[in-house]
C-alpha cells in the first residue's frame, strides 16, 4: 500500500486564503474580549453583586467577581457598583490607597458586554455609554488615593481601559494573562478613553499597533512596552491550589505597592529605555507625527481596502486627541464609538463573534470515552498538520506513512511547526522537545490496538480509502472512531465498506492545519451521536472552530466554493485579465484574488473538484468551460506548486507576473462577454451571489444545521469577506430581495447556475424573514 502526500485540495486553498487573511483580522477573533452575558435584573440592588471590597490596613482591596460566570464583563451593573465602591473609598479617612483585583483566576475583566451595545438602537445611546465610562475612568485616573490594578488573566477591551486609568499595574506573568484592545475586530474602537490614554502610555506607534490589530499582548511584553509596571510570577503548589495562591500573592504584592505609592516611596513613573525616549521625542515634532499618521493610514487603507471603517476612525480619534487636546479627543472617541457600533460591518463582525462562540461548543455533549491515543494515516501536509495540532495539546499521536521518506518529511513538518514557536518565544525548546515526544512515527500498524481515534489523510482516492479503512478496522479496538480527512469524497461512500459505519465520520481540516481554525465535521445517516461527540471533542481540543454538516458531495465548504470557481473560469474566458479579476475580488473583501486562488489551490485539484461536483450537480454547477483547466493541466500549469499557473512563481520574487503562455489557451476558449452583466460590480456579484446562493441551498437541503455554522464555515474556511459576516449575515444585511434580483438578472444571461434557491426566494418574498432574528 502506498500513502501519498495528498495533493493540495480545495480545502487547502482555503487555507492559503486564511493564512493571508489571518494577518489582518481573524487570527485573534477567538480571543476577543467581548463576552455576551444576559444580565438579569433579578439580584437586589442593595447588595453589590459584582464588586466588593475589604480593607487591609489602610489599603482597600476591591474584588471583582461577577456571579454565575467564568468571566467578568464590564456592564452597566458592574459599572455602577464600581462608582459606588470608589466613592466610598474616596470618602473614607481610613483608606489611603486601593488595589483592584479579580477573584476569578483566568480573568481580570474580559471586556465590555457586547449585548449592552447590541441593545442600543441609536448611535447616541452608544455614545452615552462611552461617555459615562469615560467620566468614571477619568475620575479614577485623577484619584489622589493611588489605585493599583492587579491583573491576572485576560484584561481586554474595557478591562484594559480600566486598568490603564489606574495609577499602577501589576500583572501575573503567565500565559493566561493577556492585555489588549480587540475592539477593532468587532468593528468598533476602545470607547472608554483607551484611544486617549494608550498613546500617552506606550507611545503613539505602539498604541496604533495595539488598537489597529487588536492583538493580545502577553504580560512580559506588556511590561517591556510600559503597559504594566510590575510582573508577578505564577506560583506552584503550596498550601493551597496554585491558582488560588497566585491570586493571593498578586494581591499581597499589589498591597505593598499600593502602600508604597501612598507613602510616595514608589514612583508611578517608569524609566523609559533609550529607544522609547527617542520615539517619544520624535513624536513631539509635528512633522514626524503627520508622517506617522500618514504611514499608518496608508497601511490601513491598503490592508482593509476601505472595507472596514473602524481602523480609520481609530486613527482619526487618536489624532484628534493628540492634535486638539484630550477634551476633543474624548468627545471624538465617544461619537465615533457610537457611529461605529451602528455600522453593518460591526454587526457582521459581532455576528461572527457570536457564531464563533457557538462553534466552540460540543453540542453532542461529552463523549463516552475521551480520546487519548490518536493515530493518523498519511504523513503528508494534512496528516502532519493534524499531528502537530494534536501533540501540542497533549494527545499521544501515532503518525503512520507508507515510506520512510514520506514519514520523515511529515515528522520534520511537525518539528518545524513547533520550532517556529520556539523562535517566536511562544514555547521553550524544552517544551518543544517534550511536546514532540508525544509523536510516534511509524510505517506499520503497531500500537493501533490502543487507538481511540484514527484520522486518515491519505490520497483522495476512494479505492485507496476503502483499502485503508479495511486494514485499519482489522487492528483497532471496537470503540475506535475512524475519521476521514477528505475535502470532497462523500463519507457514506467511504463508510460503505466499513463493518461499523456508526464509527465512521468525516473530519475536513483546512490547510495549513496549524493556522486555519476551521474544522468541518461530516456526519452520515449512520454516524452515531457518540462518534460525533468524540470528533467534536478532539477538534475542540485541537483548538478548532467546528461546524458539523451532513454528508453530501462537497459537504458544505467545497460545495460553496465550486460554483464560484466555475464562474471564475467563465469570467476569465470572457477576457477579464487575471490581475483585474484578482483586484475585483480582493476589493470586495476576499483575502485572496480569485485567479490567485486557483493557482494556490492547484489547477489539477480545481479540475478534479469541478469534475466531481459537476457530475453530482449537473448543469447548476456549469458556467466556465472546464476545458480551460484541462488544458492548463496538460501544459503543466498547475499553479504555485509547479511554478506556473495564471501567474509565474519564482522563489524570492515578490511581485508575480502573468504567465504569458496562458494567452493562447485563454484565446482559444474565449467567449464574448455579455455587456449587461459585465460591469466591475456585476463581476463581483456574479462570484458572490453564486457562492451565497449555494450556501443558502445547503441550509435548505439540511446539509447545514444553522446559518451561523454556514457563516463561520465560509469566513473561517473559505475567506468569505468577514466585513460581510458570512453568506447568511450578508443576505440579512444586504437584503434577500436585492440578491434575488441580481441572481435573476444573471440567470437571464446565463441560465440555471443563477437560479435563486427556494429558501432565498422565500426570504425575498417575506422581508421579515431573517436568518438571524
Amino acid at each position: 500500500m502506498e500513502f501519498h502526500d495528498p495533493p493540495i485540495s480545495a480545502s487547502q486553498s482555503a487555507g492559503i486564503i486564511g493564512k493571508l487573511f489571518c494577518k489582518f483580522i481573524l487570527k485573534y477573533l477567538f480571543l476577543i474580549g467581548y463576552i455576551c452575558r444576559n444580565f438579569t435584573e433579578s439580584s437586589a440592588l442593595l447588595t453589590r453583586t459584582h464588586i466588593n471590597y475589604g480593607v487591609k490596613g489602610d489599603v482597600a482591596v476591591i474584588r471583582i467577581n461577577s456571579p454565575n460566570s467564568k468571566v467578568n464583563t464590564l456592564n452597566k451593573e458592574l459599572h455602577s457598583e464600581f462608582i459606588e465602591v470608589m466613592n466610598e473609598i474616596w470618602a473614607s479617612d481610613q483608606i489611603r490607597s486601593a488595589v483592584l483585583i479579580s477573584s476569578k483566576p483566568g480573568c481580570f475583566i474580559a471586556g465590555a458586554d457586547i449585548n449592552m451595545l447590541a441593545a442600543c438602537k441609536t448611535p447616541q445611546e452608544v455614545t452615552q455609554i462611552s461617555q459615562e465610562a469615560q467620566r468614571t475612568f477619568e475620575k479614577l485616573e485623577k484619584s489622589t488615593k493611588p489605585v493599583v490594578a492587579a491583573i491576572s488573566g485576560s484584561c481586554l477591551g474595557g478591562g484594559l481601559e480600566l486598568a490603564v486609568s489606574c495609577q499602577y499595574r501589576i500583572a501575573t506573568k503567565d500565559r493566561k494573562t493577556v492585555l489588549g484592545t480587540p475592539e477593532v475586530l468587532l468593528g468598533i474602537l476602545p470607547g472608554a478613553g483607551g484611544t486617549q490614554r494608550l498613546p500617552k502610555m506606550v507611545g503613539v506607534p505602539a498604541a496604533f499597533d495595539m488598537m489597529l490589530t487588536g492583538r493580545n499582548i502577553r504580560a512580559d511584553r506588556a511590561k517591556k512596552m510600559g503597559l504594566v509596571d510590575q510582573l508577578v510570577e505564577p506560583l506552584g503548589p503550596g498550601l493551597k491550589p496554585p491558582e488560588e495562591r497566585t491570586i493571593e500573592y498578586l494581591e499581597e504584592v499589589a498591597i505593598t505597592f499600593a502602600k508604597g505609592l501612598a507613602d510616595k516611596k514608589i514612583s508611578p513613573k517608569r524609566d523609559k529605555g533609550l529607544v522609547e525616549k527617542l520615539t517619544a521625542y520624535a513624536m513631539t515634532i509635528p512633522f514626524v507625527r503627520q508622517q506617522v499618521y500618514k504611514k499608518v493610514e496608508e497601511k490601513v487603507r491598503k490592508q482593509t481596502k476601505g472595507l472596514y471603517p473602524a481602523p480609520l476612525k481609530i486613527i482619526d480619534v487618536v489624532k484628534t486627541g493628540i492634535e486638539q487636546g484630550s477634551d476633543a479627543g474624548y468627545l471624538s472617541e465617544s461619537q465615533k464609538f457610537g457611529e461605529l457600533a451602528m455600522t453593518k460591518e460591526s454587526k457582521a463582525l459581532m455576528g461572527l463573534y457570536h457564531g464563533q462562540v457557538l462553534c466552540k461548543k460540543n453540542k453532542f455533549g461529552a463523549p463516552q470515552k475521551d480520546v487519548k491515543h490518536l493515530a493518523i494515516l498519511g504523513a503528508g501536509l494534512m496528516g502532519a498538520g493534524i499531528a502537530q495540532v494534536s501533540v501540542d495539546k497533549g494527545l499521544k499521536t501515532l503518525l503512520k506513512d507508507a515510506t520512510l521518506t514520506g514519514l520523515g518529511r511529515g515528522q520534520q513538518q511537525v518539528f518545524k511547526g513547533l520550532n517556529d514557536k520556539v523562535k517566536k518565544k511562544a514555547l521553550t525548546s524544552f517544551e518543544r522537545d517534550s511536546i514532540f515526544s508525544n509523536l510516534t512515527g511509524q510505517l506499520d500498524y503497531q500500537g493501533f490496538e490502543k487507538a481511540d481515534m484514527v484520522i486518515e489523510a491519505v490520497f483522495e482516492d476512494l479505492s485507496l480509502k476503502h483499502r485503508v479503512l479495511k486494514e485499519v478496522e482489522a487492528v483497532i479496538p471496537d470503540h475506535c472512531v475512524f475519521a476521514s480527512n477528505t475535502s470532497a469524497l462523500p463519507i457514506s461512500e467511504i463508510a460503505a465498506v466499513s463493518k461499523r459505519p456508526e464509527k465512521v465520520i468525516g473530519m475536513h481540516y483546512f490547510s495549513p492545519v496549524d493556522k486555519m481554525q476551521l474544522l468541518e465535521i461530516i456526519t452520515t445517516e449512520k454516524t452515531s451521536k457518540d462518534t460525533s461527540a468524540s470528533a467534536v471533542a478532539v477538534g475542540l481540543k485541537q483548538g478548532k472552530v467546528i461546524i458539523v454538516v451532513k454528508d453530501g458531495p462537497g459537504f458544505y465548504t467545497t460545495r460553496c466554493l465550486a460554483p464560484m470557481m466555475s464562474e471564475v473560469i467563465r469570467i476569465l474566458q470572457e477576457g477579464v485579465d487575471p490581475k483585474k479579476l484578482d483586484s475585483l475580488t480582493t476589493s470586495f473583501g476576499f483575502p485572496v484574488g480569485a485567479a490567485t486562488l486557483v493557482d494556490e489551490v492547484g489547477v489539477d485539484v480545481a479540475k478534479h473538484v469541478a469534475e466531481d461536483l459537476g457530475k453530482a450537480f449537473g448543469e447548476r454547477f456549469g458556467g466556465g468551460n472546464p476545458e480551460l483547466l484541462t488544458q492548463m493541466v496538460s501544459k503543466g500549469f498547475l499553479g504555485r506548486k509547479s511554478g506556473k499557473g495564471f501567474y509565474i512563481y519564482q522563489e524570492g520574487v515578490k511581485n508575480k507576473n502573468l504567465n504569458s503562455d496562458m494567452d493562447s489557451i485563454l484565446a482559444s476558449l474565449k467567449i464574448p462577454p455579455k455587456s449587461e452583466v459585465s460591469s466591475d460590480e456585476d463581476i463581483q456579484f456574479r462570484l458572490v451571489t453564486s457562492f451565497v446562493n449555494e450556501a443558502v441551498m445547503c441550509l435548505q437541503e439540511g446539509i447545514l444545521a444553522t446559518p451561523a455554522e454556514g457563516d463561520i464555515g465560509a469566513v473561517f474556511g473559505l475567506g468569505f469577506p468577514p466585513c460581510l459576516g458570512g453568506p447568511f449575515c450578508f443576505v440579512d444585511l444586504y437584503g434577500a430581495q436585492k440578491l434575488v434580483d441580481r441572481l435573476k438578472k444573471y440567470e437571464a444571461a446565463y441560465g440555471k447556475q443563477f437560479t435563486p434557491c427556494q429558501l432565498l426566494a422565500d426570504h425575498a418574498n417575506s422581508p421579515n424573514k431573517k436568518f438571524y432574528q
Partner: protein
Amino acid sequence: MTAILTYAFKNLPTTSKWALKFSIRPLSCSSQLRAAPAVQTKTKKTLAKPNIRNIVVVDGVRTPFLLSGTSYKDLMPHDVARAALTGLLHRTSVPKEVVDYIIFGTVIQEVKTSNVAREAALGAGFSDKTPAHTVTMACISANQAMTTGVGLIASGQCDVVVAGGVELMSDIPIRHSRKMRKLMLDLNKAKSVGQRLSVISKFRLNFLAPELPAVAEFSTSETMGHSADRLAAAFAVSRLEQDEYALRSHSLAKKAQDEGLLSDVVPFKVPGKDTVTKDNGIRPSSLEQMAKLKPAFIRPYGTVTAANSSFLTDGASAMLIMAEEKALAMGYKPKAYLRDFMYVSQDPKDQLLLGPTYATPKVLEKAGLTMNDIDAFEFHEAFSGQILANFKAMDSDWFAQNYMGRKTKIGLPPLEKFNNWGGSLSLGHPFGATGCRLVMAAANRLRKEGGQYGLVAACAAGGQGHAMIVEAYPK
C-alpha cells in the same frame, strides 16, 4: 514558624544542653532499651537487614569550605579534591592498596579533569591500580557518590570504597560561543590557504561573546534563586522568617566552630598561601542588617536575598566506606552505618526544591522508622526559603493529600534536632561536596549528642531529591 524560631534563638545558648537532656539516648540500644521508658522506645533496634552486608562509614573529612574567590581561587578542582583525599588518608591511615574504588561527585566540570576523581586520586598518592569515576547529580552528587559506593559494597563487588565530592566555583569553564567553536573546528579541518581564508571570512564580531555556565534549570531556564523565591511565596514564607532561619544557621555554625565540633574539617596548606583551617563563610549578622538587603532574584519585591541563600563555595569532602566485617577485620571503630536511602524527583518548575519533603517519608517508611525515631536531622540548606517551604509542606495535610498521595502530613522535624551545627547557608555549599558533609555531620552529631538515627536529606537541581538514614555505630 516565626514563633518557634525566635523561641529557638532566645534559647540558643542553652539549646544543646536542653537537647542533650532529651536525647541522652541508649547508644548501645539493646541493654538500655529494656530499661528505657516506653516513649523512648525506637520503632526499630537496628536497621540491619538479613543477608545484606552492613556498610559503615569509617570516617570522613572535608577541606574547609571557603567563599569562592578566596584562598582556593588559584587552584583547580582536583587540587581541592586531592586535599580532601590526603586528609582522609591521614585521618584514617588506610593502606592505599586496600581501597577498591574511588567515586567523586562534582557539578560544574573542569573540562581538563572531567574524571576529577581519577586525577585527584592519582595525585593524592592512591594506588594507580585503584579505579575511580566521577558522578554528577547536581547538589546531591556526593550523595550519589556515597550510594554508588554502598551499592558496590552491598553487591559484593568491593569492600572498601572512597566517596567524596568537590566543587570549585572560583573558576568555571566559560566557553567560546557555539559559532566561534564551530569556526575554530572548521579552521582546524581546512587544508589549503584558500579554505582557511574562506572559513575566517565567516567570522563575525559577535562570535566572541562568551558562553557562561548558568545556574539555571535547563528545562525551565529559571535560576534556582528565582525558583526558591517563588517556592517561598507559594508557601507564604515571609522575608523575616527567612532571615531568622539564616541567622539561626550562622549562629549555630559559629557556635559549633568555636566549640570545635566541626571535626570533619582538615587543615589545607594551600600552595603559596597560609594554611586554611576553618570555614570562612560563617558570619552571624543581625536581623536589622539582613533586612537592609535587596532581593537578589525577584526584584523589587522578592524575599530571597544574599543573606538568606547559600553562597558560592569552594571545597571538597571525602569519606571512607567499608563493609562492616572488613572494617572490623582491619581494626577500625566505624562511626556510623549507612542505611536505607531514597532518591526522588518531581516537577523541576514549581517543586524544584521540595526534594526533602518527598524523600523523607519514603525513606522512613522504607526503614520502618518514624519522625520520632530520628535524633539528628541534617538537611541541605540551599535557601532559607527552601528549608522553610519544606517545613510547611511537611506540616501540611493539604499538601500531603494533594501532591504526595498521602493521607496525612509527614510532620515537622523538631527544630532542636535540626542542623544543630549549622548548614549549607552558613558553612557553605560546594555543590558536589555537600552530601558527604551532611552524612558526617549526622554521624558526628549522633556520637556527640548521643542518638541512634540520623536523617540526611537534600534537594537538587532538576527537581530531584535524596534522603538517607545514618545509624550511629554502637560505641
